[in-house]
């Protein structure tokens, strides 16, 4: 990021060695300052894996995670800086390479960055601060206890003098890293909990931020790959003669995933690919279509499945319930469609490999390159670049492996670009799913039993991703039984922002609303009662209800609906106001209360809550990937539309004050928006939405 040279990439490893040697072994981990002004006076000295302090007083923070828009660079910097007591204006950030010092699995999935770094980064900041204080105490010949760190300086409180971090850097870097430095009490935080501007904004308003797709190397060729449109199809024959005639095309190379066309620019590579003639053997998935998949889901859920949760006795309770309610819900496959299409730059040499990638999984990226090249992990370097969105797609390393394959075969640096069509038609999708519910009410109309059979393609081991959000509901219902049918039609599926909650929270929160209606209960009242023993959710519910004005008189045709979720360690309650206007669903306003524990950067929390709502609303109102004879029908944004600025509701975010350890935030608000809107539309129209995307004809 900031300090990487593009083009004539300086090999950091050899550079480190040289500078260390030149400086008599004193300088470890020298980094180039932002503008690449390279001079001895701006040497940055390593205090630990996360903090380097420059002799020019600039502090470089190493962000071992990755930035896909979720604000990690800023929030992780805040954790380090809180204890380091550095000047926020003197911070530089950098993405380091893959290193065990940064944990066994570097990457950004499951909204876990803050949660996993909450302690460790504050400790790293505190340890570095202590080293600086120690260095100052030694210089002054005073006891450590009279020294205190403040705003990039160490103050001698006895003599009332101060010295800058920059001038202490060299001495500090020679001190041992202290273990077990005490951390601040939360009441003493001066950075954590304060709305803080993003560190990456300036580079993102003038075109200078480097995304993976922007990396350029000398002698690099541009590649695209032709892949089987049918999942699992294999190449049976290739005629590349026309492609080779396209101006700019350099070579055509078969690779494991298809046929790579290399050219001296992206456009020629795309044109070359268009001119290929390839015979494919489609394989068994060619008989699969959306219709057949849902037919299988429907049939399977008529039978009992594998039990994912059992509390009480669902069958007996259903048989004895005063009133029984049944409903079937369904959602389609979804693409991630990050704005930056997938891409990767790779340079494979006989004894080394470098990869430049916008990736959510640096460790996985390196493992993929190691697998393909047969090199030792130490010989493979992964350069983390800004991601133009990830949403789970960039947790997979398939596109990185492809670039490594192409560079390995071509013997030159290669930038592989996926077109938008590649991105949409060769995704690892949010799985389609169908849930068959049966619930019973007691004689007073309160829920007694909740059962569901979910048919979905599981991934990531076990049934968790298929049933989370339906099986782990927080509601105190005496009998709960959730069963799962694993159905794998051969369509690739994987993590999509909020994973199983993205569909199951829609199912569960909508069906709960059905129970409220069937029992003659107010949806808020019902949730209050069932959450009596979940104080954090209850508090978020009350906050949202108060701010949204639950029960107030609404404009004609408007309705309010609730969507609640507790995923990634956070509790989120949304109340949407929606109507049908001129043949279109209109979401006017969303009030979201979130208890995410200690909010490290409240401004970032607000951004992410809005972001998750837009993402979920795109899916609820528009999203759907159609499978036809084993391939995906939708290819670009005219067929897979997403929310636009004129459809953006007014969103209000209310953060529940908390000193609990932080929860995740990047995926907190995506699950709840679809049911909040569907429930609001029920309140407005009396029509129940049981299938996404919401179709206005279902509301007539």
């Amino acid at each position, binding site marked *: 990021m900031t300090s990487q040279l593009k083009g004539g990439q300086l090999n950091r490893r050899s550079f480190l060695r040289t500078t260390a040697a030149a400086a008599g072994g004193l300088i470890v981990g020298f980094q180039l300052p932002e503008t690449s002004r390279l001079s001895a006076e701006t040497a940055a000295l390593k205090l630990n894996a996360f903090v380097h302090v420059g002799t020019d007083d600039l502090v470089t923070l190493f962000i071992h995670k990755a930035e896909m828009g*979720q604000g990690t660079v800023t929030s992780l910097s805040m954790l380090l800086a809180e204890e380091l007591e550095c000047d926020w204006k003197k911070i530089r950030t950098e993405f380091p390479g893959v290193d065990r010092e940064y944990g066994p699995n570097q990457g950004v999935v499951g909204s876990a960055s803050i949660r996993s770094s909450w302690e460790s980064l504050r400790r790293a900041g505190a340890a570095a601060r202590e080293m600086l204080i120690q260095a100052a105490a030694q210089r002054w010949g005073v006891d450590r206890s009279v020294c205190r760190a403040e705003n990039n300086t160490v103050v001698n409180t006895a003599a009332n003098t101060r010295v800058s971090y920059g001038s202490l850097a060299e001495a500090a870097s020679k001190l041992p890293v202290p273990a077990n430095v005490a951390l601040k009490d939360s009441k003493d935080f001066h950075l954590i909990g304060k709305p803080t*501007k993003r560190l990456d904004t300036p580079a993102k308003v003038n075109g200078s931020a480097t*995304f993976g797709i922007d990396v*350029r190397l000398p002698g690099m060729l541009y590649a695209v790959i032709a892949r089987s449109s049918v999942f699992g199809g294999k190449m049976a024959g290739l005629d590349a003669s026309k492609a080779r005639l396209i*101006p700019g095309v350099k070579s055509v190379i078969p690779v494991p995933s298809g046929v790579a066309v290399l050219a001296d620019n992206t456009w*020629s590579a795309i044109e070359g690919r268009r001119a290929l003639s390839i015979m494919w053997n489609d394989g068994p998935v060619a008989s699969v279509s959306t219709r057949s998949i849902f037919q299988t889901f429907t049939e399977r859920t008529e039978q009992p499945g594998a039990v994912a949760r059992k509390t009480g006795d669902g069958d007996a309770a259903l048989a004895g319930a005063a009133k029984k309610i049944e409903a079937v819900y369904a959602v389609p496959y979804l693409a991630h469609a990050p704005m930056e*299409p997938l891409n990767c730059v790779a340079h494979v040499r006989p004894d080394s490999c470098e990869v430049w990638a916008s990736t959510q999984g640096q460790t996985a990226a390196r493992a993929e390159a190691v697998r393909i090249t047969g090199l030792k992990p130490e010989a493979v370097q992964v350069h983390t670049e800004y991601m133009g969105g990830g949403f789970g797609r960039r947790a997979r390393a398939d596109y990185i492996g492809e670039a490594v394959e192409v560079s390995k075969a071509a013997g030159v640096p290669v930038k592989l670009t996926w077109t*938008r069509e590649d991105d949409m038609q060769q995704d690892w999708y949010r799985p389609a799913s169908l849930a068959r519910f049966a619930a019973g009410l007691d004689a007073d109309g309160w829920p007694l039993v909740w059962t569901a059979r979910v048919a979905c393609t599981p991934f990531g081991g076990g049934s968790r991703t298929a049933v989370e959000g339906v099986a782990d509901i927080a509601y105190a219902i005496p009998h709960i039984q959730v069963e799962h049918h694993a159905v794998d039609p051969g369509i690739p599926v994987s993590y999509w922002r909020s994973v199983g909650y993205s569909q199951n929270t829609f199912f569960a929160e909508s069906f709960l609303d059905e129970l409220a209606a069937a029992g003659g209960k107010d949806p808020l009242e019902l949730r209050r009662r069932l959450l009596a023993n979940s104080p954090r959710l209850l508090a978020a519910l009350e906050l949202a209800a108060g701010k949204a004005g639950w029960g107030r008189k609404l404009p004609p045709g408007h309705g309010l609906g609730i969507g609640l979720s507790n995923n990634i360690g956070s509790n989120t309650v949304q109340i949407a106001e929606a109507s049908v206007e001129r043949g279109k669903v209109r979401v006017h306003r969303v009030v979201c209360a979130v208890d995410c524990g200690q909010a490290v950067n409240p401004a970032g929390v607000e951004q992410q809550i809005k972001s998750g709502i837009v993402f979920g609303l795109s899916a609820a109102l528009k999203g759907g990937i159609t499978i036809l004879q084993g391939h995906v029908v939708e290819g670009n944004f005219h067929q897979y539309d997403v929310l636009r600025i004129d459809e953006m509701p007014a969103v209000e975010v209310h953060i529940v004050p908390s000193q609990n350890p932080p929860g995740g935030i990047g995926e907190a608000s995506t699950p709840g928006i679809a049911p909040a809107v569907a429930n609001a539309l029920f309140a407005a129209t009396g029509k129940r939405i049981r299938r996404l995307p919401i179709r206005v004809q279902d509301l007539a």
Partner: protein
Amino acid sequence: MPAVRFTLNGKPQTVDVVPNMPLLWVLRDTLGLTGTKFGCGMALCGACTVHVNGQPMRSCATPISSIAGKTVTTIEGLSPDSTNPVQLAWIEHDVPQCGYCQSGQIMTAVALLAKTSRPTDADIDEALRNNICRCGTYDEIRRAIVRAAEIQRAQGGAK
């Protein structure tokens, strides 16, 4: 292949590429100006928006041959120091998340403010509705445009 001459960010530029190559790829691959982004390649998302003779254009759907003799401005040429009112307002409102769509959003907003010094919500909807942001920065974009208009009026920059 006849060379194409045009003005790019205030300087004369000549490129010698196939005539139907979209301006987007000329900028990004041939000239190394990577601030203009590829999002869809079909004039559907707005990520590749640049100004051609002051008008917002989708560079992914603009063959290089069609811009001979014209003036092209990209995000890199908007201001030397990020002081265009739209950039200032974008920083003030911390608009970008991933940032990938933002070059296109900013170029579109600048073009809007060149026409309209006091854009209404409807003007903003109309001008920006074909610029997709998957991170959902729409709220901040709207506020920042209103703010940019204020800055621009204070500078006496537009009608």
